[in-house]
């Protein structure tokens, strides 16, 4: 053994080769030997010699080390790290060197994600085969127990400030050797960590206290949190980890396919578009959106960047929602933003870059086929010798394909996002700041979406953590630029038309009915001759204070201020398109709003023996929506240099508006747990809404729930593989008041934009009018939704396999609906009544499995929800027709015994083969206008309910349902070494799509527009047997009437997302970069569907119109399809 004292070994510093130290394996078994003896043994095994300063190394220290074929580096680490000795190999020497103390335990830790996304920290060193003790120090032993006195295995015991530690055994026993004045830290997941001074004790027994915030996954519910195992209501939880931390455009996409019974439909494929979330079916006839709550207070969910979300909880049954009472009938989505955790600042960057590409294309007619069809369309109008306009007679011009209009409007768009987060904290303050930038080009037109996000939250702990003050501040600036293409127009353009025409005003081509018989709009004109810029700034400032009056009693007060400002700008240059000339013009609007809310609640938590009680009472006041809006317009600018409305020849204030709302609520909840087995929850809330007349304003919303953790029962203990068995049932009422304000008054109507006008006088002066256009809603009250829920949860093999099944029945009664009144009242707006009743019932299941296969760990989860929607009553009202579409009238009918917004029309029998067939059809049914090639419709019924030999309204029937019977999702995640892979599938089944664009627009052959190649099969001459009728402009037989010809299956399964990630092994664990993950993602790579249109994920005609959504849904009028997206990203943590 070389024991040379070298006072100056600076010369020897240089390249430190840890590699060599890793390769050499050491096997040692020392018990009470001196360090010197051990080091000598190491020198023998490694053929190396130690080189060190004697001041730094106490060779007489007795050590206890037991390693078996462990690397030299690891061995040295165990021997010396506690003394802050660093080592390196130089030549054949192991150089030992004293370094400054540092926070060594940190670098031996790694984070692993366990079941339910729970994060816990385990120490790699605690795996049993390595142990090091310092014999000259004292030995401590003891038993750690849980609250029931049972020995608690797996408790980490670490000497504070060192890596010295151990773990309790199966009986909760432990033994550890520590230095002088040591402090021991006892920690275990789910229990409160405790730090104890060893003093002169040699036996330390300890009872660990359960940590309600850590024992297991906590689920955020209204005004509090509940342990997942103690939940009595139906709550779905989604965490970013479940989504693979990948890029999502909005919060809806995080939920999509990940919560049973929650159907998420994106409004359209444009970036920045919103989603419709339906929880357990269509609960009401008008607005059936859930209530969104962010960090405990209702608000606009889109204010928060998806990257800043810690968790999303979806409250599904009334037991969970009733605490939000009046506004919760359609479920509640709770969003919790990320918080800082105690520790040094942790900086995370996430960015990606990629492309959105167009999906499918439709097969359109080429020029020759198009011209062939035009001739048929025109000659079947009754005009026997129709002469085409001169332009169309020039075959050398019109038989040439000049423009693929789909290619002209679709494009590849760039998408990128950058997000930076800094979080950390101390005992007294925790903070989290983040900022993000998102830019996404649509895959069509020149539309672009940009978003800037900021989030700042901080919490201060005062008076020994009895008082907590905090704020959550979110800001979002959004910008929508440019135009998305109207591809309905694109599809109608003649393929012979060029895209550009330098001789036309504006430079883009046009076709006209006079020259082309086709007056479709060139879609490029409006894209490129209009500048659109819509921006919105949203601020959300939340302040709260929480005070523990006594440990069991906490009062919280929270204040929220939501502010928004917006500006829409739309300038169009002068152009001629189709038959229409549009002058240049500018439309601008400005709006702002302010909505404050104030809430107070007190929570009482206490245990008395086997009784565990949590009680909460609170109130809320909201005086919201102080909003104002103004729209201005200017037209006919002389020059387009200065584009202010006042520079226009004509300018005007087009519209103005204002709004206000209020709420006042009191609520309370009792959670009672008996013997950790029997769970009981009672909620009560009462709300007042000014939407009803004084006297009808208050509504009461109670709920009860019971849970039984059967696995805690003694008789279940002999089923060791069954780790969880829980039953829960609930009943409750929640409400809905979304009818708009002041409906109980007979309001004066002055037109939608104060535009009841009539010109009078010799100068045609404009006079403004006023009238009454609505009857007041009298004696209306809250709509109530009563739901029952029953669920069974089963977990096997330590919950490795987890299964949940739920049944629910939700009855929405007193649905606020405008019961149609006779048009002969001359009143356009029917009053709201509590008229209808709707039932949604169904079952849901969730299945999770996590397993290992060699080095591969994986997780599979599947969820599905069956739902049946049925209108049980419309009160005294008649069926509600809706879904009106130009050319064919109402598409949907909401009627008793059928789902909301079901498709209603005729059934096709056949296409009349020849004149004899047509004659027979005419004679049988009196359908005088039917000719060969027209559609024969079925005589289904008559005034007496039986076929009556007449094809009329009585033959209309329910032909489809836009509500899916089954929605499902499947998610798969796997890790292999440093690789991770996720994919997500979502789908729905049992619903139908009304393909308005595909059939009326693209197969209708009523107008000389381009059509899909399906029309090549059209009936042309006697004897043609086909299902495509003749081309007829007059369509006197109404072949295009609402019928099952439009109905297609809406079932689809979509590969939503595939992500492959690789986490770089960090060469130097103490380096600046703590974690670096690279990934590639593909979205919407394929969709299995029988639907013939662009995209089976159909929203509604006007998805932003909440009032009409449910009766307009599932009708494909040319919503912009979802893009296919590919991107690559990087996640770095510093």
């Amino acid at each position: 053994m070389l024991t040379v004292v070298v006072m100056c070994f600076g010369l020897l510093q240089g390249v430190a080769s840890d590699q060599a130290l890793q390769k050499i394996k050491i096997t040692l078994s020392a018990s009470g030997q001196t360090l010197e003896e051990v080091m000598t043994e190491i020198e023998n095994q490694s053929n190396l010699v130690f080189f060190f300063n004697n001041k730094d190394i106490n060779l007489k220290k007795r050590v206890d080390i037991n390693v078996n074929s462990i690397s030299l580096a690891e061995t040295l680490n165990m021997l010396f790290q506690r003394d802050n000795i660093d080592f390196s190999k130089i030549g054949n020497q192991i150089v030992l060197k004293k370094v400054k103390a540092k926070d060594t335990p940190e670098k031996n830790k790694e984070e692993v994600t366990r079941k339910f996304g729970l994060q816990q920290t385990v120490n790699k060193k605690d795996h049993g085969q390595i142990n090091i003790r310092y014999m000259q120090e004292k030995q401590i032993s003891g038993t750690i127990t849980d609250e029931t006195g049972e020995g608690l295995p797996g408790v980490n015991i670490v000497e504070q400030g060192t890596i010295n530690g151990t773990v309790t055994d199966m009986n909760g026993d432990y033994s550890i050797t520590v230095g002088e004045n040591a402090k021991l830290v006892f920690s275990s997941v789910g229990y409160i960590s405790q730090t104890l001074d060893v003093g002169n004790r040699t036996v330390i027994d300890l009872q660990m206290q359960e940590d309600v915030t850590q024992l297991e996954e906590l689920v955020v519910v209204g005004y509090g949190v509940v342990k997942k195992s103690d939940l009595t209501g139906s709550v779905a939880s989604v965490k970013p980890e479940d989504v693979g931390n990948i890029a999502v455009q909005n919060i809806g996409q995080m939920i999509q396919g990940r919560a049973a019974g929650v159907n998420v439909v994106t409004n359209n494929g444009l970036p920045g578009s919103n989603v419709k979330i339906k929880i357990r079916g269509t609960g009401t006839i008008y607005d059936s959106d859930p209530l969104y709550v962010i960090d405990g207070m209702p608000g606009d969910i889109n204010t928060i960047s998806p990257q800043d979300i810690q968790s999303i909880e979806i409250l599904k049954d009334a037991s969970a929602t009733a605490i939000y009472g009046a506004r919760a009938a359609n479920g509640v989505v709770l969003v919790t933003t990320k918080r800082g955790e105690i520790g040094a600042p942790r900086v995370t960057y996430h960015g990606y870059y990629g492309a959105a590409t167009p999906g499918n294309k439709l097969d359109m007619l080429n020029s020759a086929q198009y011209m062939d069809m035009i001739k048929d369309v025109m000659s079947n109008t009754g005009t026997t010798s129709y002469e085409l306009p001169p332009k169309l007679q020039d075959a050398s011009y019109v038989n040439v394909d000049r423009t693929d209009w789909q290619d002209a409007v679709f494009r590849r768009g760039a998408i990128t996002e950058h997000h930076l987060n800094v979080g950390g904290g101390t005992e007294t303050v925790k903070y989290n700041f983040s900022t993000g930038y998102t830019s996404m080009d649509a895959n069509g037109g020149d539309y672009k979406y940009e978003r800037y996000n900021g989030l700042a939250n901080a919490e201060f702990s005062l008076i020994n953590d009895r008082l907590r003050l905090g704020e959550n501040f979110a800001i979002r600036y959004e910008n929508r630029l440019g135009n998305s293409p109207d591809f309905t127009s694109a599809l109608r353009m003649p393929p012979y038309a060029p895209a550009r025409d330098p001789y036309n005003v504006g430079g883009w081509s046009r076709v006209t009915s006079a020259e082309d018989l086709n007056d479709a709009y060139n879609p490029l004109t409006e894209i490129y001759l209009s500048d659109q810029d819509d921006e919105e700034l949203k601020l959300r400032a939340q302040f709260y204070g929480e005070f523990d009056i006594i440990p069991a009693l906490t009062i919280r007060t929270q204040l929220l201020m939501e502010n928004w400002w917006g500006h829409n700008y739309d300038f169009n240059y002068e152009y001629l398109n189709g038959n229409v000339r549009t002058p240049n013009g500018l439309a601008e609007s400005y709006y702002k709003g302010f909505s404050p809310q104030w809430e107070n609640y007190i929570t009482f938590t206490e245990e008395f023996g086997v009784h565990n009680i949590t009680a909460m009472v609170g109130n809320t006041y909201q005086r919201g929506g102080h909003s104002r809006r103004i729209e201005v317009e200017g037209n006919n600018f002389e020059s387009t240099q200065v584009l202010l409305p006042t520079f226009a020849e004509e300018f005007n204030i087009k519209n103005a508006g204002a709004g206000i709302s209020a709420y006042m609520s009191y609520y309370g909840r009792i959670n009672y747990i008996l013997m950790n087995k029997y769970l009981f929850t009672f909620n009560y809330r009462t709300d007042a809404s000014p939407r009803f007349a004084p006297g009808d304003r208050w509504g009461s919303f109670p709920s009860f729930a019971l849970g039984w953790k059967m696995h805690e029962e003694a008789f279940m203990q002999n089923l060791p593989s069954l780790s969880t068995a829980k039953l829960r049932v609930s009943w409750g009422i929640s409400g809905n008041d979304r009818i708009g304000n002041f409906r109980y008054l007979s309001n004066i109507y002055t037109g939608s934009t104060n535009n009841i006008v009539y010109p009078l006088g010799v100068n045609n002066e404009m006079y403004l009018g006023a009238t009454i256009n609505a009857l007041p809603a009298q004696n209306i009250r809250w709509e109530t939704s009563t739901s029952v829920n029953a669920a069974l949860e089963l977990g096997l093999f330590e919950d490795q396999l987890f299964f949940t099944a739920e049944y629910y029945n939700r009855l929405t009664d007193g649905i606020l609906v405008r019961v149609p009144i006779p048009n002969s009242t001359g009143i356009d707006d029917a009053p709201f009544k509590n008229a209808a009743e709707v039932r949604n019932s169904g079952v849901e299941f969730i299945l999770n499995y996590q397993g290992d296969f060699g080095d591969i760990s994986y997780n599979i989860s599947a969820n599905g929800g069956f739902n049946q929607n049925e209108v049980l009553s419309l009160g005294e009202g008649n069926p509600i027709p809706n879904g009106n579409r130009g050319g064919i009238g109402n598409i949907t009918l909401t009627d008793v015994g059928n789902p909301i917004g079901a498709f209603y029309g005729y059934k096709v029998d056949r296409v009349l083969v020849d004149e004899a067939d047509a004659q027979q059809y005419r004679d049988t049914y009196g359908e005088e206008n039917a000719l060969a090639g027209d559609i024969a419709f079925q005589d289904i019924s008559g005034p007496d309910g039986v076929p009556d030999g007449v094809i009329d309204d009585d033959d209309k029937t329910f032909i489809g349902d836009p509500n899916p019977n089954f929605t499902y999702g499947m998610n798969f995640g796997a890790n292999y070494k440093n690789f991770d892979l996720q994919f997500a599938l979502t789908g729905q089944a049992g619903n139908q799509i009304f393909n308005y664009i595909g059939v009326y627009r693209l197969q209708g052959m009523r107008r000389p527009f381009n059509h899909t190649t399906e029309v090549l099969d059209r009936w042309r001459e006697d004897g043609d047997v086909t299902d495509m009728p003749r081309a007829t402009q007059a369509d006197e037989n109404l072949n295009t009437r609402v019928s099952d010809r439009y109905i297609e299956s809406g079932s689809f399964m979509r590969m939503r997302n595939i992500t492959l990630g690789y986490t770089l092994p960090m060469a130097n664990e103490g380096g600046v970069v703590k974690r670096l993950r690279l990934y590639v993602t593909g979205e919407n790579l394929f969709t299995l569907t029988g639907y013939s249109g662009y995209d089976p994920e159909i929203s509604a005609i006007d998805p932003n119109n909440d009032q009409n959504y449910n009766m307009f849904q599932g009708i494909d009028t040319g919503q912009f399809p979802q893009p296919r997206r590919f991107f690559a990203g990087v996640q770095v943590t510093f």
Partner: protein
Amino acid sequence: MRLNIIKIFSLLLAFILLGACNDEFLELDNPEAYDENTYFKTQDQINSAVIGTYATLLHRGMHARDWYFIFDLMGSDAMKNTFLLGDDAEFYNFSFQNTNPRLQELWDTNYRMRTRAVIVIDKVDEWQPENIEEARLQPIYKGEGYFMKSFAYFNLVRMFGAIPYADTWNDVKDTDNLARPRTEESVVYDSIIADLQRAVERLPESWDDANKGRATKYSAHALLGKVYLTIGEYAMARNQFMEIVNSGRFNLWDGTEGYENQFTNANWDSPETIFDVRHNWYGWSAGNAYHMFGGNETWGGRAANSGRAMEYGFNDWWNVFVSSAAVESFDYTVEGASYMDPRSSLVFYGNPSEGGDGNWAGGTYDYRAKGNSWKKYNRYETIVKEGNPTSDINTQLIRYADVLLMIAETYIFQDQYAEALPYINEVRRRVGALEYTTVPASFDEAFEILRRERRLELVGEQHRWFDLKRWHLADKSSAAGFDMVAVINADRALDTKNNPGDMAEKYIYLPIPINELQNNPQLDNNLNYPNWN
């Protein structure tokens, strides 16, 4: 300890429940609209209610677009061109059902007009006039309410026969009786007459320059006369018409130029107009030129323009021609000699040898390619293209020539042919048409002259359908055998371009629209034709 907890808890509970607010917190004032109880208190507000009533004349189903299509096509004044499609074409084809949206709008808009009118009648009394001028206006506004209420009901009863009838605002808004059964035609006519008499009492003889275009006493006389004529009260009708003639306030706008100008935007101050729909285009910043496609009072902004010039114009949308039957009617026999009526070239562009005008602002009219296209109510004498449907030509509802011919009709239906002739000749004289000198020998002869004159003078003004129906239903033994269905089908046979089928008899009554049937369980839909009307 536990007691303390309960004490503290109770105190906090009290704080939360009683602490902050009471129900007054929820008392909000609507920042966007007045309500029935706070409005209708001033002259401006009452005037707005009257304006709101007139505004319905511009709604869908009425004169921003649909009325001219529907009744020109059904009355065979206009003939479908290829570009006329869908819901509008069904009126030419007589293939429309009770589901036709244009038909629905006819119904809805006239009832909307009625309701706004009865609101005026009801609310005008709540207003306390503050000065003599306001006191003068109070009954006048009420008179306008009565006039517009009658106008709406007269349209409805002529189109649909017996109709649901509500008399007052309190009746209309009675939530227990929103669905009303059909009221017999005669009862509806009686109440129209009573209301028009109230209007006559209250309306002024004329309006000042700023208010020209509102209903006058003479508008009410003319309408009342027309109502009497329709129910066969010829003497009563004539009394009303004579009030207009004797007032000396109206005359035919002189010469062919006068006739032409009556259908240009010079017609806002015509001496001939008794009641019209005022149109004006205030520009894109105020409104949308396409408001006639359902944008009234919604997305259309503040717009009062007419789509007609664009819809009918041969160099614009060119949805219709002048019907072959109308064209042929200009060439007829007067007192034994073949005669081409001078109004033909004022009414349509076409082959000059068939009476059409062969020139327009764009040069020579290519009648071989273009057929016979509308000149009346179009602007192609001064512009070559509309470009947008922004016509500001007022729509004539009742004009002096119509009144003169209705006077003639009262005489003819009372077999006083000699008395009728001067009124017909007065109308002909204005355009320089040959005057009739021989007193017709029989009712048939006089009736034929009258029918022809109304067709030629009023072509394209949506009178013919109602004329034919009036005559078809007239209780006049000597007119027996007049069959509007046969007349219309004879007209249609002349259309070799579309080869349209026949009109079925049931179309004499328009079908009650589907929405009304569905929402009004009180309706009997089998009064005139089973499952139709």
